[in-house]
């Protein structure tokens, strides 16, 4: 018997098995959420805020959490982007390989590893200190803080892929660093930057721990940044803890909505990346 062929077959089988487990888990999650949630997923879930007694199984929907999550994730993504892009550009084009740059990268990597509940607790302490109530604003700040390292490092890595000859071309025409960064590097990296932003948005919309202490929860759609805000992950959390089976079922339905949103963003990211790839130099 050929030992090498056996080895080959064995490890191939192992890889296939791993792949099946990974893809299978994804499908299993979808299946469970869909099967348990689909019966409760009605139009009113999407279009109404909770009415009196909603959490006891009465009329209403989770429009408050859908809108709240979108507000919160969008706000946090924008804030993290505004803070993260200059950092990434600075690291790439100005700081070079200095100690400061590598220290900054290390800090961002450490920040990446911090669990979001810790960010929540940290911001909560600050809120207590300044005497602020849980609100959309503080939720946005917390989520932005935990998206910041994800977004910045992703953009940093994407811009690292910009070929040297493009930067050289730009400098050879008499560009300043800022012009090179803003007009050439970021343009070449645009599809990747967009992916980083949408990835961050998906992470932001799905996180429950960071907003648990900072964003509050409400049955209403927030009218201002200082109102508390409901989010989908917390909507799932609160409903699933209910003793009423019909409310538990709605938790899964809320899960479907959350999954759908993330899926939508993911597809949008693929499509838009393709569109912006047009000008990219390979």
């Amino acid at each position, binding site marked *: 018997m050929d030992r090498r062929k056996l080895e080959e077959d064995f490890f191939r089988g192992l890889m296939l098995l791993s792949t099946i487990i990974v893809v299978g888990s994804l499908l299993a999650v979808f299946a469970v959420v869909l099967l348990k949630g689909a019966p409760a997923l009605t139009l009113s879930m999407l279009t109404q805020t909770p009415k009196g007694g909603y959490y006891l199984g009465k009329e209403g929907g989770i429009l408050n959490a859908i809108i709240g999550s979108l507000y919160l994730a969008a706000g946090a993504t924008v804030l993290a982007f505004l803070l993260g892009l200059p950092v990434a550009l600075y690291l790439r084009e100005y700081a*070079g*390989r200095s100690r400061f740059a590598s220290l900054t990268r290390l800090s961002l990597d450490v920040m990446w590893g911090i669990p979001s509940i810790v960010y929540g607790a940290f911001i909560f302490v600050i809120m207590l200190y300044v005497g602020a109530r849980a609100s959309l604003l503080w939720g946005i700040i917390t989520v932005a803080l935990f998206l910041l390292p994800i977004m910045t490092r992703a953009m940093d890595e994407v811009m690292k892929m910009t*070929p*040297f*000859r*493009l*930067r*050289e*071309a*730009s*400098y*050879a*025409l*008499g*560009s*300043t660093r800022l*012009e090179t960064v803003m*007009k*050439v590097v970021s*343009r*070449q990296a645009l599809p990747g930057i967009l992916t980083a932003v949408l990835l961050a948005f998906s992470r932001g919309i799905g996180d429950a721990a960071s907003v648990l202490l900072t964003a509050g929860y409400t049955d209403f759609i927030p009218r201002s940044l200082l109102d508390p805000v409901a989010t989908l992950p917390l909507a799932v959390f609160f409903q699933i803890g209910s003793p009423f089976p019909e409310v538990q079922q709605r938790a899964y339905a809320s899960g479907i909505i959350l999954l759908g949103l993330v899926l939508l963003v993911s597809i949008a990211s693929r499509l838009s990346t393709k569109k912006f790839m*047009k*000008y*990219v*130099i*390979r």
Partner: protein
Amino acid sequence: MDTFKPHISIQKLNVFYEQHHVLKDITVDIPEKRITAIIGPSGCGKTTLLKSLNRLIDLIEGVKVSGKVLVNGVNIFDNGIDITDIRKKVGLIAQMPNPLPMSVYDNVAYGPRIHWAKDRRELDQTVEHCLQAVGLWSEVKERLKEPASRLSAGQQQRLCLARALAVKPEVLLCDEPTSALDPISGRQIETQLLTLKRDYTIVFVTHVLRQARRLADYVIFVYLGELVEHGPAQTVFTQPSDPRTRAYIEGVFG
């Protein structure tokens, strides 16, 4: 016999990459409105010498330079010098075509846009004029909005030439500008350079001796970081004075 008026004057130029001494005491003048070829085997410092002339070597980490490069009598390595101004005067065509990640039009308009605010009509004119100067206009006038990366390699290289011209430089540096191209595209670039020398000082690097013979008015032979010989192309190719030059030209090494 031609008379040469110097445009760029290189004086005791030394370049180090970390500990590596890449260029040793180079002193030579580059004539105005002529084509100067820097020849020599691979890895002997030709490209470094070329990129010293508009300080593109600054982009390489750990580079150290001593000596002077005078362009119109101004030392470009002086402290107070505006580096973007130098690169505006001294443009570069790279070895590999390197279009920017934007449309054909925006590639050519890039330089004018960053250096002087122009109204749309003037910009249109500059773009057309520069594309015409490199013989590309008739090929791309319907494709100005397309990504530059969709052009063929030869077209891309001519686009890069047009892009450099749009900045209105005095000097064009070319780093083996035809080595990545097919023979026909390469010949097109050579023809452009011969036309352009009426208005521009051109310095190009090559390790193809036949190309140097076809184009050059003046030749600089660099070997292992040293300037071995320089002079009018006629003289260097027919009566080289240094035995190393003779050996290189006869193809003993390359």
